[in-house]
């Protein structure tokens, strides 16, 4: 348990370092849903960095999976439709709300953006309420 917390803290420090480098180098916020969304409507000269960023996320995953395969443990046993609905909601909601955990939750809060603070409180509260309801409904098998 204690090791989980230490890993979480160091993981968080790495994430904070990554988003700081994005700001220092490219002058951008690391909002992952926004980066993906921009790549879905390609604009000349503004697409390659988005694709390579996602490539970096994938490469990091490959390396992490080699170093510590347990990082991809998924014990949530649910039916395939829940994954499909979850993906649809996350895609739809993050574009409607202009951000996700990275853009609002980390970058936005760090620069004390009122929009990001509100969005983070709303998605956390919605997530907590939803887990409560989904447990009652037996969505997680």
């Amino acid at each position: 348990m204690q090791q989980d917390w230490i890993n979480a803290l160091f993981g968080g420090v790495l994430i904070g370092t990554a988003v700081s480098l994005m700001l220092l180098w490219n002058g951008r916020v690391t909002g992952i849903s926004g980066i993906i969304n921009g790549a879905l409507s390609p604009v000349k000269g503004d697409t390659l960095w988005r694709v390579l960023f996602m490539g970096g996320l994938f490469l990091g995953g490959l390396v992490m999976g080699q170093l510590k395969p347990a990082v991809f443990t998924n014990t949530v046993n649910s039916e395939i439709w829940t994954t499909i609905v979850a993906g649809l909601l996350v895609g739809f909601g993050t574009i409607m709300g202009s951000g996700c955990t990275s853009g609002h939750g980390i970058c936005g809060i760090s620069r004390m953006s009122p929009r990001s603070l509100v969005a983070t409180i709303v998605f956390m509260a919605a997530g907590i309420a939803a887990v409560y309801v989904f447990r009652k409904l037996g969505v997680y098998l």
Partner: protein
Amino acid sequence: MKNALSALAVGFIFALGLGLSGMTQPQKVIGFLDLFGHWDPSLIFVMAGAILVHFVMYKLIRKRKSPLLSTQWHVPTKKEITPALIIGAFIFGVGWALGGFCPGPAITSLASFDKTPFVFVISMLAGMFLYKSSRSLWKLQDI
């Protein structure tokens, strides 16, 4: 090209952080949101660590006239709390709770070559596309 290679490096470091912290394990994310059940608070430290670093670095970096690889800053400046912001965040929160994935960890988890992250990412792209193509119907434009 330089700003694309730097983005690759950022994505790489970000993914290592996600893996180390536990964000690529949906049961940990759902456990973190399970405040009224078997709450697993460890993911608080992910946000705390990331915000702590970036809060300090943001102030230092923004003292510069411009970033290193761009002539200007591209940081959002909007301040209005719009209905789209709130409804969108709510919908995202419900989806996050249902699957245990948010966009970054989902992309990183594709490297597991498991079926679940793959299905999730395809659905997420479809959800993004769905919002973009139906945006005018909602009359809640946020961007």
